[in-house]
């Protein structure tokens, strides 16, 4: 690991400097994670008096449980929808902003602030817009003969949380796409223009491939966001309902463990989620900005 050529030779000082970070990490991150792993192999009796070691039973039960498997599929669908929509929308806006000169800053300001909106607040904003009795959007949809009710229709509820999660993430993707676009040398586009390529051809054959490191990075970040940071959106709006239709994995851990008090199963779910995060972080640090580099 890299250090400086010139270093200080104290022994105790560096330990004291890094200690606060280490202590907090050990107490609030590593210890709880180990506890989660331990209780994922245990079962508690209904009164919480005794626990017994049950090997992989919590895991095998989970994977035999249709509600868990469908939550898995639902999370996949949700994450894919949010990632694709938020990235596509942001890319179009970033490409547009990078074309305008004078007003670029004004548009950027108007587009980036949702980053600072809490997920739960984003959820409530859209929950209100889609409110079946007084909301503006069901009213508009009604004019087209579409009935909207996310309280009874699982599909409507899913569409609602996807829209809210996408809306919140556009600003983030937009900033990274914009930074990526601005780092592509103009000379390349100019050369292609001289060769007779129009703006759209240039975008798809030159700009988009050169943007692939950013795209790949955002892909990982967005999947991570959709899987874990959207807890507030779900809890603020549908609470996983109606009839489990929006119960994604991260919400299920909370609902089963904290509300349902099924500690063993919830711990096993936590461990599975940890493995997913570890895989995502691994992919991010191992491959991003190395493989897709021109």
């Amino acid at each position, binding site marked *: 690991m890299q250090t400086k050529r010139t270093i200080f030779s104290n022994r105790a000082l560096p*330990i004291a400097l890094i200690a606060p970070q280490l202590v907090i990490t050990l107490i609030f991150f590593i210890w709880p994670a180990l506890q989660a792993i331990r209780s994922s192999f245990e079962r508690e009796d209904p009164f919480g008096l005794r626990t017994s070691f049950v090997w992989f039973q919590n895991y095998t039960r989970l994977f035999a449980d249709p509600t868990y498997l469908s939550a898995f599929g639902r999370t996949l669908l949700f994450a894919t929808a949010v990632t694709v929509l938020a990235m596509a929308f942001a890319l179009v806006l970033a490409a547009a902003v990078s074309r*305008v000169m004078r007003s670029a800053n004004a548009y950027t300001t108007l587009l980036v602030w949702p980053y600072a909106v809490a997920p739960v607040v984003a959820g409530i904003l859209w929950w*209100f817009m889609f409110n079946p009795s007084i909301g503006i959007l069901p009213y508009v949809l009604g004019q087209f003969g579409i009935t909207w009710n996310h309280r009874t229709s699982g599909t409507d509820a899913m569409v609602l949380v996807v829209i809210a999660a996408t809306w919140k993430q556009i600003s983030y993707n937009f900033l990274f796409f914009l930074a990526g676009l601005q780092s592509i040398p103009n000379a390349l586009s100019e050369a292609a223009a001289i060769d007779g390529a129009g703006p759209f051809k240039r975008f798809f054959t030159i700009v988009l491939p050169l943007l692939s490191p950013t795209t790949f990075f955002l892909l990982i970040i967005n999947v991570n966001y959709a899987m874990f940071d959207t807890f507030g959106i779900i809890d603020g709006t549908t609470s996983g309902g109606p009839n489990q239709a929006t119960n994604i994995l991260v919400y299920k851990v909370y609902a089963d463990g904290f509300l349902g008090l099924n500690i063993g199963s919830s711990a096993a779910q936590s461990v599975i989620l940890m493995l997913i995060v570890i895989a995502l972080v691994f992919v991010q640090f191992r491959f991003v900005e190395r493989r897709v580099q021109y």
Partner: protein
Amino acid sequence: MVENRPLLNIATHLVLIIGVAIVVFPVYVAFIASTQAPGTFFRGVTPLLPGPAMIENYTTMLTDGMSTSGAPPLWLMLVNSTWMAVIVTVGKISISILSAYAIVYFRFPLRALCFWIVFVTLMLPVEVRIIPTFAVVSNLGLLNSYLGLTLPLIASATATFLFRQFFLTVPDELTEAARVDGAGPVKFFIDILLPLSRTNIAALSVIMFIYGWVQYLWPLLVTTDSRYYTVVMGIKRMAAYADQQPQWNLVMAAVILAMLPPVLIVIFMQRLFVKGLVETEK
């Protein structure tokens, strides 16, 4: 711009205006709702033009709150949120700049291991270790306290990496010169490294403040006493209540007030915000 295409320019602006409209519309609707008189939301559709009761609604929320939903007045929750965000920001930046300094400028036993332990925090978001973390905080007696709200959140791998990256670009000659002049590690850190890190600290503060402000799950778990509610989690309670008793004018006033501080920070410190965001994620 490579060539001049008037039609495409118009289309570009059109796309941007539609994009901005989609992004702004939900907040516009919320703001309009927050200006309506009580009783507007019993039937019909949400109005799209401001109502007469803006000042009453905001004053009611700030001073009394929606007592029926069991949430305290909004000013108290705003103060709590501010405290939480500020403590998280200061805490995260202090402990990460110190640990980055230790990792870059010293050699000590188990340095690589320490680095990896810090790195691991990236892989364990609160959401996946809810129950055991709650148990730890509860055993330490930190439920319903600012310490319990903030302490578990202030370990930061990203901030540590950012400072480490930055320290590695600081020329070695500076350290050598400082040592020749007889400066020890503490003096070097305070008089040279800290001033050099000013911009990074500022940029990171913006990101961390937002991070602290928008926390939801953690405050929800560790606060049962309404004196410690933060505004972001308090809103959820009011919104759930508004579904039965449509006081959306009040709920939306709370929503606007809860969004305002971090959104204003992003708008007025845009350059620092963008710098902080783009650099922490690299």
